[in-house]
């Protein structure tokens, strides 16, 4: 029997290549390409009065300089609104180059095409732009104030959206206890190691525009570029060979630079490349997380939730290319694993003169979980019951699935939890962290230190549609070629898709070669986001492999003169069950699958026209069949599948320095059936690290004029591995009933409850309320002083 690899900790096939410098990232391409360099706005809110490029144009090595006035056709239109929504009453997207106004520091104003980046930056210094600055709208308070980001958007409100289930007003009116709570989270961002990048080549012989792009969604980049340049889709090829992290930012497309590199390549007789630098990544890509929540919760004597009313404000930055997906996710994911019969949520998505906000790993769930979990802790504190007990009393029970939230999820379909076991998950986490004996450890804290413990639970909708597809082909050389349209940005797709195909088809894992995110190989796809790749592409390649298997068995049945029901595929051989001597290798079946006139090898002779195959009563390719041992499979989920998890943490706080040390960090995670525990754990490690970053290290510090004060890794404190503790992981596997493989997404999970759980533990240690994240030692110090709980 072929050893199954599904569920095994198979080593990532990507790693040797990536860690020995053999990756193929966008900036590795086109060493002689023209460099696209952008002149960006130094003002957060200003009118562009005049632009003088004359001096810059004189510079040796400058090919062309464009301003808005120079943009032809659709290039002069605003970039597309990717996800419209009925509640998004005032969407705004930016132009490729600023038209009359700039609305954040970093917005692109002038495009320079130069022989290299050095010359491009020299030219950028010589471009003279005159601005007439206006008052910048910064932060949520700024957005709610009198100044406007877009003159035609009153109150800066892009969207005002409400949803509810049950009767919240009556529930709150009748509830024995009601608490009103306020929570806030600041901005952060994904900070992928590789910034945005695009390299475009116009092949004038074959009339193809070839684009290597650091994107999470190559097929959509292709359609967008073709549409804006007004050329046939057929002329555009987009591929993302290796992408150095995306975290959501690289779902957004097309960026101004994507279009300009493509257009430049077609017009300047040279390929054109844009490679974003780190400062640009901070000031001109995407941010997330800035939200302020007001919650009103009603509950009974036992701590059971009766009603929850949440009103929050989402700072969407200057533009809304991704619609209102982020706050919509907060709204629908806020109830988490709890039975919440009466829930109302309203949000306003507001403009500020800052970098646009689009989903970043976790995608607005960290705020949702922060609000819900802090609320659960407050209920526990109010009633004097254990924080774990309040949660147990409110969990949706394992026999209540499918559980309909009564709301519409971010995919436009009903939010219905498919499966899970929340009570068991919490129990596992509690025993892992030894919750019950914490009092002892608290009392053992060294002098000058305080210890605290926290727990937080979450539910995450993953694996959204609309669909993904996969293609599997058995080559006559024996290799199995697999392709899927969505791109990989480091997740390990090449490994897990190979595992799935190897098992479904019955071939050795080593024989499977996977290509992702290349429109030349696979034209239809949605993209890598929403923890959806394994669920959607995974099930699609599984389906493709099953179709190939059927076809192989049918062909082999003829060749072996056996009944198809009696055949199986083991280790790449089609054989009669129990009689492995009657076998034919898949590679040979692939030969037979393609009737030949011309032979190319000894093996191929078997498929040539005088080899005596088949009957003369039928054509060589029978009706309804295709040549080649290959198939395309599709998976289109009925709706999202909901993963879940519980994190628990023990912290120790130094009272002199207010530094928070994480003593233990425990994760219990349920992503349905696990394809590869090594990869799931790696995803969790990375996610938790980003969560800790958002909780204790990172912020995007804007001053009142809208300048980002910490746009470098020196001052934006992405933690090093030295700051990340050991992460202990346990799994629970409740298969998803929605897809054949029973899997749920795992990519974002790790990050989601981290702010909530760390806040819970710090609050437990310090004894005063923690209502905001991130929390730096400096903040904690002043909060302790203000609380009057100074160290003795």
């Amino acid at each position: 029997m072929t050893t199954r690899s599904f569920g095994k900790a198979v080593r990532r096939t990507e790693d040797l290549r990536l860690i020995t410098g053999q990756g193929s990232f966008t900036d590795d391409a086109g060493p002689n390409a023209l460099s696209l360099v952008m002149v960006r706005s130094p003002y957060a809110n200003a009118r562009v009065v005049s632009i003088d490029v004359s001096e810059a144009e004189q510079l040796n090595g400058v090919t062309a300089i464009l301003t808005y006035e120079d943009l032809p056709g659709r290039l002069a239109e605003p970039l597309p609104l990717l996800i419209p929504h009925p509640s998004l009453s005032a969407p705004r997207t930016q132009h490729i180059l600023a038209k009359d106004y700039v609305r954040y520091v970093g917005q692109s104003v002038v495009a320079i095409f130069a022989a290299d980046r050095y010359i491009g930056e020299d030219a950028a210094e010589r471009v003279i732009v005159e601005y007439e600055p206006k008052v910048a709208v910064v932060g949520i308070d700024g957005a709610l104030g009198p100044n406007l980001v877009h003159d035609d958007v009153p109150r800066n409100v892009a969207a005002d959206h409400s949803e509810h289930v049950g009767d919240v007003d009556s529930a709150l009116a009748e509830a024995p206890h009601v608490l009103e709570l306020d929570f806030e989270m600041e901005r952060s961002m994904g900070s992928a190691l590789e910034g945005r990048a695009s390299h475009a080549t116009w092949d004038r012989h074959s009339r193809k525009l070839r684009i290597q792009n650091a994107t999470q969604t190559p097929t959509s980049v292709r359609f967008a570029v073709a549409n804006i340049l007004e050329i046939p889709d057929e002329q555009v090829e987009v591929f993302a060979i290796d992408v150095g992290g995306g975290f959501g930012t690289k779902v957004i497309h097309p960026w101004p630079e994507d279009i300009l590199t493509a257009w430049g390549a077609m017009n300047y007789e040279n390929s054109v490349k844009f490679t974003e630098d780190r400062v640009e990544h901070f000031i001109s890509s995407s941010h997330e997380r800035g939200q302020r929540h007001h919650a009103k919760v009603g509950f009974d004597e036992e701590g059971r939730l009766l009603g929850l009313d949440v009103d929050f404000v989402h700072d969407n930055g200057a533009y809304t290319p991704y619609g209102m997906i982020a706050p919509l996710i907060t709204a629908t994911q806020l109830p988490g694993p709890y039975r919440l019969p009466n829930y109302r949520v309203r949000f306003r998505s507001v403009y500020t003169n800052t970098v646009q906000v689009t989903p970043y790993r976790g995608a607005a769930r960290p705020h949702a979980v922060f609000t819900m979990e802090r609320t659960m802790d407050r209920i526990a504190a109010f009633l004097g019951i254990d924080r774990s007990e309040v949660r147990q009393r409110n969990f949706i029970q394992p026999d209540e699935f499918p559980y309909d939230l009564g709301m519409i999820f971010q995919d436009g379909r009903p939010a219905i939890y498919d499966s899970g076991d929340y009570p068991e998950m919490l129990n596992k986490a509690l025993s892992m962290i030894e919750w019950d004996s914490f009092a002892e450890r608290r009392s053992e804290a060294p002098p000058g230190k305080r210890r605290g413990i926290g727990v937080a639970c979450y539910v995450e909708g993953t694996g959204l549609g609309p669909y993904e597809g996969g293609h599997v082909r058995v080559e006559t050389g024996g290799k199995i070629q697999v392709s899927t349209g969505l791109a990989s940005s480091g997740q390990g797709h090449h490994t897990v898709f190979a595992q799935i195909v190897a098992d479904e088809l019955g071939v050795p894992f080593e024989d499977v070669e996977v290509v992702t995110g290349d429109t030349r190989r696979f034209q239809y796809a949605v993209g890598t986001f929403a923890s959806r790749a394994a669920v959607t592409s995974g099930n699609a390649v599984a389906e493709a492999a099953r179709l190939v298997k059927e076809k192989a068995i049918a062909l082999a049945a003829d060749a072996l003169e056996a009944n198809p029901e009696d055949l199986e595929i083991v280790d790449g051989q089609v054989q009669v069950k129990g009689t492995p001597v009657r076998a034919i290798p898949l590679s040979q079946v692939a030969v037979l699958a393609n009737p030949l006139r011309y032979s190319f090898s000894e093996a191929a002779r078997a498929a040539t026209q005088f080899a005596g195959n088949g009957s003369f009563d039928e054509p060589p390719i029978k009706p309804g069949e295709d040549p080649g041992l290959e198939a395309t499979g599709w998976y289109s989920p009925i709706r999202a599948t909901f993963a879940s998890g519980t994190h628990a943490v023990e912290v120790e706080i130094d009272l002199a320095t207010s530094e928070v040390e994480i003593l233990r960090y425990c994760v219990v995670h349920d992503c349905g059936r696990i394809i590869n525990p090594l990869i799931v754990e790696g995803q969790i490690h990375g996610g938790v690290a980003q969560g800790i970053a958002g909780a204790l290290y990172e912020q995007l510090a804007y001053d009142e004029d809208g300048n980002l004060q910490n746009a470098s890794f020196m001052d934006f404190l992405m933690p090093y591995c030295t700051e990340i503790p050991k992460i202990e992981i346990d799994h629970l596997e409740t298969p998803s009933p929605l897809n054949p493989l029973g899997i749920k997404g795992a990519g974002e999970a790790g990050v989601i409850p981290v702010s909530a759980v760390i806040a819970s533990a710090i609050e437990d240690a310090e004894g005063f309320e923690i209502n905001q994240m991130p929390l730096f030692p400096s903040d904690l110090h002043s909060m302790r002083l203000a609380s009057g709980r100074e160290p003795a």
Partner: protein
Amino acid sequence: MKPASFDYHRATSVEDATQLLSELEDAKILAGGQSLIPLMNFRLSTPPHLIDISNLPELSEIKVDDRSVTVGAAVTHTTLLKTQRVASELPLLVDAEKLVAHEVIRNRGTVCGSLAHADPAGEMTAVIRVLDGAVRTSSVDGERTIQAVDLFEGPLQSSLKENEVIVEAIFPKLGRNSLSSFREVARRHGDYAIAGAVSVVDYDDARSIASARTAFLSVGPVPILISFDQLLAKTKISDIGHDEIYEIVSSQLNPQADVHASADYRRHLAAELAWESLKACV
């Protein structure tokens, strides 16, 4: 983030370096480049000429004698950190070097470059201040010695003249009856400190304190020295009171807020670290 164009000159000797420095307009010395190159990449500094001294053998020596450890201008942090004689003769240098950045930066960055750069967050600026050390410089006008107290004028501002090169830094050794300790808090491992304190305590023969002082980093425009002689002379280390030290330090420091920390927190931290580092001098 690409530098403006510049000409690169590799000095063949100190004399060559000083000659070039006086001849070329707005030239800058390049040592390890760990501070200068980032500034150039951001185009915050656009020197038309760089004069590289990092390969000069005559600047690559560490000399240890009875009175001091002398570190040549091409000596990297890593070399100082890994030199056995330094560890045994003036362990404070090693304690401090462990807190300077990360290994890859220490492999290139130089000790004298740190001093020339005059970043008040740099560990070596506080060390040379608390030890009352000096740098020796050379220029076409001759040589001179600048005491640490006179070297630092403001953030990233030293009293070096434009045509001067630091040739070596002199760190006086501590006496047999002296102890030192370095404490700092950085947000991430290897980052510039939010605040730091390096203390030296001299004892008399009776194991009473003869003199005690602390230099602070990251809490002012230059490394700041506070003497505790008045408070502590003739007392035992075990008698030092937290609150008195805290009071003296916090009343004398006036740090700035930035995105990482409030001024109050920095002041508080400096006071706590002073206390901890003094107590550790036993």
